[in-house]
């Protein structure tokens, strides 16, 4: 048969599988693929158990070891027929806990321990890698069988190219259909259906070859039986220890292998499918094994000495010129290999992604990074994991150089994954099993497996030196990998299986007894061990929900009135006169929705689940509750923050408002003051001018009144001047006339000018003219105005009998300080700051013609001159201090 046709046929077959998966996926998405989720498809998908190893290898196994190959089928058969309750529990828990892989199951059972997830993932990857390599090898070998006789030079490079194409193609197929989308339950309808199709192909192919052998090559069953009788296969002695061990091993493998767990638990869509599978799967296995011995016998008889019995299924028809049958057999083997690799890659990539890549990413990413696009990230991590798993398989295939004995690799993998069994069974049936126990058991079992079986399988000196194999490490004979503790003379496989599982189980039990489970672990343990107790009836109504208990709970959450109203309405809707409705599913769901509105969906679900006796509250439920609580807390924290902000804003507003009110009050007071200050002189002017207009009075009296009018008019003018001055100074638009001026001269001028105020008083002026010889760069007129004001005030208000005024000048760096201190009684403490306010005349008794704006104007002038004016307390007398810069720059003045 031309090699090209073979390649074409393989390609066509793969495309056909693509199409099947694609169409099924489409129809499933449209919801029109109910039949695809049938027990038959489920059962057929379980056939991933039968890999190329079983397809090709079983015949080789039979040719080498007689009926022992049957143990590989007997184990699963026993599990499916006898341990269906274990499978049912696994499937139930898998669905309740939304388990995504066997690593997830173990990690979930022991308190969501990611450490356990990682350990199981590592075991599975290490154990499955050679197994995947085995599939690549079988496909490559089978290509070689076809190419060998016709095409010359089917040499190593070509084989490598074939295997890399196979690995790449499988990776592409798996990525395409294994990670098309992310389902919470990790189910892949398309892939599973394609696997089922492949199951049919491999069964038909093997049966066809068998029928050809029995009826084509031999002349019927009777002939075959006699040929078997006379062949060397009949001579094989059954080894009880090896049989027992292998049956146990394959039984463990059928539930512990990652790919088996994937189709058995994760892809299971209906628990009832197990009922069909429990008889149909053993039947399938039986059919697969039916013609193994006849093919082996005929192969041994007809094929030339030294030909590989692992390939009898292919070479036998080929040697008889049955090209079509050989092609079918090739496709069967191809199916076996591809289905195994695809499902294993999906299962392993899920584990690697969920337990290694994602936790790493989550811990490495910056805190509070965007969480929106995790889906895409998960998909990417899955795809990379698939590529990595297949890459590992390919690397192993290349490095191992393709061992001839396929079966050995398969069994070694089985022992590896069987290490998961104690932790799994313990987790399912023993509430006392703890995380620490599981970690220790798995680690010890895995270590012994690697030391005693896996590493030696590479051959002496490959990993473990031959000397260690023969004499033990450092000459410790009892630690020889294949004769641990001096137990010699038994099969290495059984030896490793025994010690690894024994130590695994012992460590698991011992540490479980010694350690205490954490709270999540305890709850998960209860949920796993009692998976059936609470959820025997998935239907609400049969769950025995007590409506009264529900009402009590609802009242607590919704409030008495609302809860009663809801229950009454529901009861009325059910046609009942009482308050309590029957716990029908509709009612319970309505209640859950109602509660969800108050406490969140997860909490509501958990509460109802407890009371309605539905499923046990799972850790997911509790996590969801915790999440909700966290969200609520975050929300309330945000509210609190907002509240604080509002309070702050309100306070600020209030402060601003108070200030505005104060300003407004001040403005009113100011206007009122101005009004008063204007009206007062006006009153005198009007009254006296009216009196004068009436005439009829002595001339000197009239003159006196006219003088009053004149005085008041001047007072009015001064007031207006002051007001105008103040407003210019306050608005900062004052024009300063800067120039150099002598301070002493300014004080001289001020003293002369202020002398007009109460000229009758004689003041003793004390000054030190030498200290006043300072040239200031300032507005000398304005500064003098301030001096005049202060001196006039002293003249007006100093109440001492012998009044004196001391003017004291000091230079301090770039500033000058001028103090005006008289010997009066001073200003009361509580009014010392008040005096600089407008109209703050402290007393009206000693009227000096001012309107109370003097000091206010002084303050504004000093501010404009870059200086200050203040009352100097603690002097026991009236003391004012002025400070100002020696050199006022324009910028400071503006």
């Amino acid at each position, binding site marked *: 048969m031309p090699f090209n046709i073979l390649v074409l046929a393989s390609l066509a077959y793969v495309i056909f599988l693509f199409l099947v998966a694609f169409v099924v996926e489409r129809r499933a998405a449209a919801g029109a693929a109910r039949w695809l989720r049938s027990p038959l498809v489920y059962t057929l998908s379980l056939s991933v158990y039968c890999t190329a190893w079983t397809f090709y290898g079983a015949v080789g196994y039979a040719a080498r070891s007689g009926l022992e190959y049957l143990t590989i089928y007997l184990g699963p058969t026993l599990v499916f027929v006898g341990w269906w309750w274990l499978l049912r529990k696994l499937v139930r828990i898998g669905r309740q806990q939304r388990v995504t892989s066997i690593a997830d199951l173990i990690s979930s059972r022991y308190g969501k321990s990611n450490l356990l997830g990682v350990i199981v993932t590592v075991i599975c990857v290490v154990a499955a890698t050679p197994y995947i390599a085995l599939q690549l090898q079988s496909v490559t070998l089978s290509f070689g069988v076809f190419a060998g006789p016709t095409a010359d030079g089917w040499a190593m490079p070509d084989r490598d190219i074939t295997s890399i194409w196979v690995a790449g193609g499988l990776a592409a197929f798996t990525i395409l259909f294994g990670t098309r989308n992310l389902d919470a339950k990790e189910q892949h309808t398309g892939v599973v259906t394609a696997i089922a199709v492949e199951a049919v192909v491999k069964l038909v192919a093997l049966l066809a070859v068998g029928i050809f052998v029995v009826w084509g090559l031999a002349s019927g069953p009777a002939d075959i039986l006699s040929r078997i009788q006379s062949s060397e296969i009949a001579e094989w002695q059954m080894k009880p220890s090896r049989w027992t061990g292998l049956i146990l091993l394959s039984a463990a493998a059928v539930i512990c292998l990652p790919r088996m767990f994937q189709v058995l638990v994760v892809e299971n869509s209906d628990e009832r499918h197990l009922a069909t599978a429990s008889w149909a799967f053993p039947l399938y296995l039986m059919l697969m094994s039916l013609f193994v011995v006849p093919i082996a016998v005929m192969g041994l008889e007809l094929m030339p000495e030294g030909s590989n019995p692992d390939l009898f299924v292919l070479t036998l028809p080929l040697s008889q010129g049955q090209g079509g049958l050989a092609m079918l057999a090739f496709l069967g083997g191809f199916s076996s290999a591809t289905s195994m690799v695809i499902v294993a890659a999906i299962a392993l990539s899920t584990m690697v992604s969920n337990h290694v890549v994602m936790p790493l990413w989550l811990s490495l990413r910056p805190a509070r990074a965007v969480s929106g696009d995790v889906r895409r990230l998960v998909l990417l991590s899955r795809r990379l994991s698939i590529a990595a798993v297949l890459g590992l398989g390919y690397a192993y295939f290349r490095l191992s150089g393709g061992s001839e004995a396929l079966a050995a690799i398969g069994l070694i993998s089985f022992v590896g994954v069987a290490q998961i069994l104690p932790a799994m069974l313990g987790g399912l049936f023993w509430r006392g099993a703890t995380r620490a126990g599981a970690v220790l058991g798995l680690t010890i079992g895995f270590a012994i497996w690697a030391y005693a079986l896996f590493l030696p399988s590479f051959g002496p000196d490959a990993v473990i030196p031959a000397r260690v194999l023969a004499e033990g490490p450092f000459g410790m004979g009892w630690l020889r990998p294949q004769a641990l503790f001096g137990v010699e003379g038994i099969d290495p496989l059984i030896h490793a299986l025994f010690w690894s599982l024994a130590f695994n189980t012992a460590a698991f039990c011992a540490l479980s007894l010694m350690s205490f489970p954490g709270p999540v672990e305890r709850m998960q343990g209860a949920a796993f061990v009692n998976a059936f107790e609470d959820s025997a009836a998935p239907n609400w109504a049969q769950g025995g929900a007590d409506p009264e208990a529900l009402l009590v709970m609802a009242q607590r959450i919704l409030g008495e009135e609302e809860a009663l109203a809801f229950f009454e309405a529901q009861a009325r809707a059910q046609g009942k006169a009482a308050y309590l409705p029957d716990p029908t599913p509709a009612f319970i769901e309505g209640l859950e929705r109602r509660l969800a509105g108050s406490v969140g969906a997860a909490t509501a679900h958990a509460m109802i689940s407890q009371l309605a006796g539905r499923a046990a509250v799972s850790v997911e439920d509790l996590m969801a509750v915790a999440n909700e609580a966290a969200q609520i807390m975050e929300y309330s924290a945000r509210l609190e923050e907002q509240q604080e902000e509002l309070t702050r804003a309100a306070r600020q507003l209030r402060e601003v408002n108070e200030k505005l009110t104060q300003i407004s009050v001040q403005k009113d007071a100011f206007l009122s003051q101005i009004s008063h200050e204007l009206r007062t002189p006006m009153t005198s002017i009007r009254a006296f001018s009216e009196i004068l207009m009436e005439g009829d009075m002595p001339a000197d009296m009239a003159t006196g009144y006219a003088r009053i009018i004149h005085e008041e008019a001047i007072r009015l003018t001064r007031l207006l001047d002051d007001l105008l001055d103040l407003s210019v100074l306050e608005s900062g638009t004052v024009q300063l006339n800067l120039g150099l001026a002598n301070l002493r001269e300014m004080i001289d001028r001020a003293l002369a000018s202020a002398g007009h105020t109460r000229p009758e008083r004689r003041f003793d002026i004390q000054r030190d003219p030498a200290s006043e010889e300072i040239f200031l760069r300032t507005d000398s007129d304005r500064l003098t105005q301030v001096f005049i004001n202060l001196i006039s005030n002293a003249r007006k208000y100093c109440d001492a009998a012998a009044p004196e005024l001391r003017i004291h000048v000091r230079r301090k760096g770039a500033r000058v300080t001028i103090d005006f201190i008289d010997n009066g009684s001073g200003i009361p403490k509580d009014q010392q700051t008040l005096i600089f306010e407008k109209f703050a005349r402290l*007393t009206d008794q000693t009227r000096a013609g001012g309107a109370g704006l003097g000091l206010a104007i002084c303050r504004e002038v000093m501010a404009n001159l870059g200086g200050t004016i203040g009352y100097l307390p603690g002097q026991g007398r009236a003391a004012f201090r002025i400070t100002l810069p020696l050199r006022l720059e324009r910028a400071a003045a503006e």
Partner: protein
Amino acid sequence: MGRHVLLIEDEPHIAEAIRFILNRDGWQVSTHANGQDAVARVHATRPDVLILDVMLPGASGFEVLSQLRAQPETANLPVLMLTAKGQGRDREAAERAGADLFITKPFSNAEILASVRSLVTP
């Protein structure tokens, strides 16, 4: 009916003007220039009409009036209040305090004369 007016006003020029106007009309005018001992002064002089400025040193005209109204002897004393602030608030405060009449400065001589007269003519 007596014709004795007590004028409590701190602005000497205004007091002088009012005194002149009332004297000419035949009133006897006593003056007083602060708030703190104004009540005592009222009791001492027993006027027929009281003219009371609002802005007084010591105590405001409102305070003085409230004290007067609280005492039986002066509860019904006719009081004319003067204010230079000219705001509605002052007028209300004056009425609350018990003023009979209220004049805003500056006023005409005829106005104050008529007001004083009206207070003694029932």
